């Protein structure tokens, strides 16, 4: 059995995470929780879907994350005429050498912001999501690995549906987290104004860690100890989503796996070498809500996936002494 991560190592992850979050705090005001979860997704080798209205700093968040990690950042603005080859790259004929050479698409980066993913056609979406899952792209029978670490931050607008292609459940399942940025509080918005009055803080932002270090931390997070009781608790939560009367389709086993990876990364980010039930409760809404399909009658009654998750969290007993 692989050796569990020890406390000093977890402390190292925590220090790196603190530096990263402090960096993000220099640019974004009051978005520490979202930034923390994006970092967790990166360490858990997952991807993030940010669902919110325009203008809340989704792109800025992605750029800040990329800058803080000293990673290569690319942005894909999705439109209905976007082709899979625009994303993955194309083989171009080089007249001078008389051969085809691969011109990489924007997907060939460490952090990729896929803006308004629901505006791309299903064909492009599936090419993109396949790359997310397999971490490689195939162009003209040639397979190329994507750089590591690889994090996709996709955004979609939950309000506008005209001219969009909603992501099917199978594709939503590939995102580790669905996050909402949310409007800032009044003080936060005032602070934002003063911060951006003279210059863009992103321009002078130093990196907190490197891509190579992030890769190393990913390996460490996988070794964080998950007690059997906590594992049972996670499984019980996921199964409860399947048995809830208002749910048509509960969270998948992939969700269970994702939940475990997420809680391991979160525990390491918080300087622990073991997972607490609190970690599970913290990431469960972001991990499970988007993977559930709610029954039509429940949706008409105004039930949301987040409500059902919190109900499930209240229902399933936490593994503590009786």
């Amino acid at each position, binding site marked *: *059995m692989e050796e*569990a991560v*020890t*406390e000093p190592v977890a*402390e190292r992850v925590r220090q790196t995470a603190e530096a990263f979050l402090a960096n993000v705090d220099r640019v974004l005001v009051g978005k520490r929780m979202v930034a923390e979860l994006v970092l967790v997704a990166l360490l858990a080798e997952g991807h993030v879907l940010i669902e919110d209205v325009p203008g809340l700093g989704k792109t800025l968040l992605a750029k800040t994350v990329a800058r803080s990690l000293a990673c290569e950042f690319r942005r894909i603005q999705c439109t209905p005429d976007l082709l899979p080859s625009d994303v993955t790259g194309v083989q171009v004929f080089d007249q001078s050498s008389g051969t085809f050479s691969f011109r990489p698409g924007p997907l060939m980066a460490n952090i990729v912001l896929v803006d308004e993913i629901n505006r791309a056609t299903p064909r492009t979406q599936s090419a993109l999501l396949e790359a997310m899952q397999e971490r490689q792209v195939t162009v003209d029978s040639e397979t190329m690995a994507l750089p590591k670490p690889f994090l996709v931050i996709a955004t979609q607008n939950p309000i506008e549906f005209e001219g969009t292609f909603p992501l099917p459940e199978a594709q939503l399942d590939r995102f580790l987290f669905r996050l909402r940025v949310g409007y800032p509080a009044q003080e936060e918005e005032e602070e934002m104004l003063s911060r951006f009055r003279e210059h863009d803080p992103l321009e002078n932002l130093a990196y907190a860690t490197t891509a190579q270090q992030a890769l190393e931390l990913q390996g460490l997070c996988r070794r964080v*100890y998950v*007690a*059997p*009781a*906590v594992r049972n608790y996670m*499984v*019980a939560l996921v*199964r*409860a989503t399947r*048995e809830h009367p208002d749910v048509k389709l509960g969270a998948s086993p992939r969700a269970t796996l994702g939940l475990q990876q997420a809680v391991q990364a979160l525990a390491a980010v918080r300087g*622990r*070498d*073991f*997972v*607490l*039930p*609190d970690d599970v*409760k913290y990431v469960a809404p972001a991990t499970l809500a988007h993977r559930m399909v709610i029954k039509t009658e429940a949706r008409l009654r105004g039930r949301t996936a987040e409500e059902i998750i919190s109900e499930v*969290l*209240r*229902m*399933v*007993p*936490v*593994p*503590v*002494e*009786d």
Partner: protein
Amino acid sequence: MSEHRTTRGSEDGTMAPSGRGRELFLLLLLVAGELAWICLLLTTVVRAVGRMPNLPSLSLLLPASAVLNFICRRWHPSRAPLLLPRAAAIALYFVAVTIVVVLYFRGEVLPLGVEHAAVLVCALALWPLGARLGWGSLRHERVLGEFQFGLVALLTTLLAGRALGVSTGHQTTAGLAFVAVGVLALSVSRTGTTGGRQPRSSYWAMTATALAAVFAVGLLIATLATPDALVAVGRAFTWLWHQIEHVLAVVARWFPEKSGGAASGPGWTAPGTSNENFQSSDILPESFLRVFRIGFAFFVGALALVVVWILTVRAVEWARRQASHLATVGVERLSTNRDRRAYSWVHQMRTHLARLAALLGFGKKESFEQSQTASVRSLYRKLLRWAAANGAPKDRSQTPLEYHSVLTSRWPQLLPEISALTRAYMVVRYSRHVIDENELEELERAWTNLRSRKRHRAAEAEAQNGGSCN
């Protein structure tokens, strides 16, 4: 939590077996070998001597078994898989007990009477009790240990009864006494007397003490519980008294007679010496014996209840585990009030029984780390009960940290104690770390402080209320 540095060995305490079939085969081989060895020993002695071995020769069985156990452990140290070997060991154990009983009654008519059934029941009761000791992390050598101990205790009882001249009718009672006390003593040796916190180094010393207790206390109880044995003891006392008289008579011959008559020994008669058919009531009054018998019957009854309870709980747990493995129902449904009441009742019963069992010294043989973990968990349970009794019960969906917030907002003055207990509990429950003895002592101190400070505060509040009333 950087102070918790020690790390447990493996995730669930098991080493990866190289193959389930191989493990099972080896275990069966070991059990069969052990059984064959005991039977061979017995039959050889029976053939050579023409009768069952006596008590001293039988006493060789235990050290010989210990040596065999040691060899087994060295030969194959990995853990055994749980279910099938356990079932196989139980079956073999039953077979062995039957063989022993048949050997004992060899040549005699075996009526289907209550006495034989009782001997079997007594032997069968030993297994669950023994298995209970090592249930959590069952090693095959431990299975064998329990198995051997059961056999040896039973044989010793039967043969000790025969040596004392106890009639068959009363050997059952004596057997029960021996077995019950033996198991109790052994479990004490395995658990430790102060909450199971003895380091492993004291294990052997405690085991030796416990084994001595098996014979001493078992003999005492058997003596008190069986009138025939009492007769035998009375005879022994009489014999002893004769020897004293004889010595006194020899000594008296050395002194010259002062006033007439030949020196023909002491001029008095020891009580009972003239009456060969003396009754047990000459030593102890019948009413006293009756009280002992009734008390012993209650003891055996309680023991049987505990066995039934343990078996039931284990069966239910096993069934639940199977159900969850089959993935039919994996989530506890929202419980109704009635369910909660029933759950609470069952839980309380179980807790009280567990406490009683712990008080009697029952418990799994735990490693030092496991016992530390158990102590911390026990302290946290006390905290939960204390908080519930003081109006802050924990909700089942609350994590320790969430509950910590509830408690500290209610009793802010107890923040250090509650934090220490909660933190230690989280470490031992959810991580591989263990806490050392000093930390455990600090936690116990924190728990004592918590209770005393609460009491102190309550007393102060009462005094203030009293003062304001005055």
